């Protein structure tokens, strides 16, 4: 395509439309539900430590999700979002990354963060927006972030992280540009992983992010979690193409669709994608297919828009059980021991919750910090007025008044 219009050069003389579904995109499956590798599939190169860490992360998240869902029902936490059904999709893709790769997620990817070592206490402090939350209690539960773990703080507005991931990845490339010759001086060492839902992929930011990454060659993996729903909106009211994967060709981006309940397929595809990114500096699109088994969030009630039957039909293959079956086949796992471990985890979660909910809220000053690098004069003035007011009426602002000097 070296012509100025940048299009392929074949010609035809009969009038025929290209069908809206001209690409029939297959789904990669590696691991059978019974724990066997499919004939024709290659078992990815995954060592036992990685496999167990992946497995335990999934089970941890499942326990956490269950507990926190219950805690919300009890009114102890204001809001929660489970990743039920998508554990393998998220954990296995995170496992295929380097720990210095940046992750820019949507919100349902707590498993990726856990895989990197986010502690139970850190989860809890964020959800209870207490003073130990490094984000100072400013966002709703589940909006985690960690500079140390290269996990960008979650932002509620959907899809905004997609072009941002392109920019971040571009930085990871420019780092290797020699300032004298203006050329890439070494291979790209780290990439950006960008997670988003099939709903978010309808936003204009999706289009901008993918197109820019393809044109500017930014080493980013776009990981579309197609879980069938955006709150109540089913995928067939969200798009009419063949999933999100069919869009890759529109941007000139190499693409693959994987079974998101198959940890090995996800792992293998992501590993390979990362390799291409670092070697060519180009983006990759992965579409992972896994049904959103739970509700959208604790504010949602799916019975208003989908049938129990559909839910049952689509949650047959449990991603955790399937991976477990493989581990057992490989004799890498002592299930009884793991179950005991998991019981312990469940107790730890409850204990941590009890601790975190009692920790004080952030201090008054954190109302105005971090708006700018240092508070601007008008904000300092506003703060002083507020402080004076609260000191006059300490009983009306019990959360903060006690700690004012």
């Amino acid at each position, binding site marked *: 395509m070296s012509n100025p219009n940048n299009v392929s050069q074949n010609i035809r003389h009969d009038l025929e439309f290209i069908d809206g579904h001209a690409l029939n995109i297959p789904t990669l499956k590696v691991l059978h539900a019974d724990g066997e590798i499919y004939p024709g599939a290659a078992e990815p190169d995954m060592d036992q430590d990685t496999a167990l860490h992946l497995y335990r992360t999934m089970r941890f998240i499942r326990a956490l999700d269950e507990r926190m869902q219950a805690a919300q029902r009890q009114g102890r936490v204001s809001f929660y979002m489970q990743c039920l059904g998508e554990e393998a999709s998220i954990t296995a893709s995170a496992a295929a990354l380097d720990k210095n790769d940046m992750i820019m997620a949507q919100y349902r990817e707590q498993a990726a963060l856990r895989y990197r070592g986010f502690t139970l206490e850190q989860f809890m402090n964020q959800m209870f927006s207490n003073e130990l939350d490094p984000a100072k*209690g400013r966002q709703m539960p589940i909006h985690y972030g960690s500079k140390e773990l290269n996990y960008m703080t979650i932002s*509620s507005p959907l899809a905004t992280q997609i072009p941002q991931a392109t920019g971040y990845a571009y930085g990871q490339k420019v780092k290797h540009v020699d300032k004298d010759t203006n050329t890439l001086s070494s291979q790209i060492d780290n990439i950006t992983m960008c997670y988003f839902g099939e*709903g978010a992929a309808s936003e204009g930011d999706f289009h901008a992010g993918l197109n820019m990454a393809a044109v500017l060659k930014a080493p980013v993996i776009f990981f579309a979690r197609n879980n069938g729903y955006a*709150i*109540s909106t089913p995928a067939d009211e969200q798009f009419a193409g063949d999933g999100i994967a069919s869009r890759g060709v529109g941007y000139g981006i190499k693409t693959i669709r994987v079974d998101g309940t198959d940890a090995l397929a996800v792992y293998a595809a992501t590993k390979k994608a990362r390799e291409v990114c670092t070697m060519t500096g180009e983006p990759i699109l992965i579409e992972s297919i896994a049904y959103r088994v739970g509700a959208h969030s604790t504010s949602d009630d799916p019975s208003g828009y989908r049938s129990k039957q559909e839910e049952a039909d689509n949650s047959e293959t449990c991603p955790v059980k399937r991976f477990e079956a493989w581990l057992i086949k490989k004799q890498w796992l002592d299930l009884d021991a793991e179950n005991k471990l998991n019981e312990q985890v469940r107790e730890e979660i409850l204990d941590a919750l009890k601790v975190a909910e009692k920790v004080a809220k952030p201090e008054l000053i954190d109302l105005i910090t971090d708006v700018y690098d240092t508070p601007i004069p008008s904000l300092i003035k506003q703060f002083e007025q507020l402080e004076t007011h609260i000191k006059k009426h300490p009983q009306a602002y019990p*959360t903060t008044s006690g700690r004012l000097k």
Partner: protein
Amino acid sequence: MAKVNMLKAINSALEISMNENPMACIFGEDVGVFGGVFRATSGLQEQFGKHRVFNTPLTEQGILGFANGLAAFGAPTIAEIQFADYIFPAFDQIVNESAKFRYRSGNEFDVGNLTIRTPYGGGIAGGLYHSQSPEAYFAHTPGLKIVVPRNPYEAKGLLRAAIKDQNPVLFFEPKRLYRASIGEVPEDDYIIPLGKAQVVKEGSDVTLLAWGAQMEIIENAAKQAEEAGISCEVIDLRSIIPWDVETIAKSVTKTGRLIVSHEAPITNGFGSEVAATIGEECFLHLESPIMRVCGLDTPYPLALEKEYVPDALKVLAAIKQSVSF
């Protein structure tokens, strides 16, 4: 006349509008089968079919682009943005397109049929992305009208007026009050004219001005002030654009004092326009500086929401400060 909450009042206004014109359409994220995440459009798809009440793909700029086109075609067009915090991807379509459609074409084309409904405001532990009050962003844009109701009765009458009005109207719904505010609402159709403020309570010492959910706060402050012997005139602005300078100026000419209150950050909030205009209009009548009791110049917080919001206590403090100036 039944007592209903604000959601029901809105739902009723929508139903009447759908029956009024067979071209009328309602759409947005999750407004279809589900009836919207707050259920304001509940039952409407069932009644009017999937062609006229429907989910859109998840794209606010698309919703408003689509809405501008549909309104230009001539259909009564009622678009929902799920949270006002998510209206910004549609900012270009609203500010550069909806607002300028009629002007740029010399009235050859217009989107006067457009109404944009969106829940706004804090008080639901929503943090910085489920609590914003963005009315001032739009108030700087000639061509738009902006309306904020304070209770179910007002919501129905003003929404009907917004839908019938032949200009693009932004209708901000105080989500904190969706279920909390309950009042008598006629089942039949009625209209509350846009652009007219309402004196909710007469008084002589100081004028209190707000709109939407903030009305409850200033009414509460006014009550407490009365107990301290200060007589407050309480006004609901109702329409941000066009706004009723006359009613406010008349009140301030009488009381000599004005306090405006909104949740949005103080700097360049709509309170600044009110203060600037009334400061000029009533210069010789002002007995104390016009005060603004507003959100701080920070994103909307979560843990410290109580500290942040312009509550009745802060309004009361301002009242006392104003009368003792």
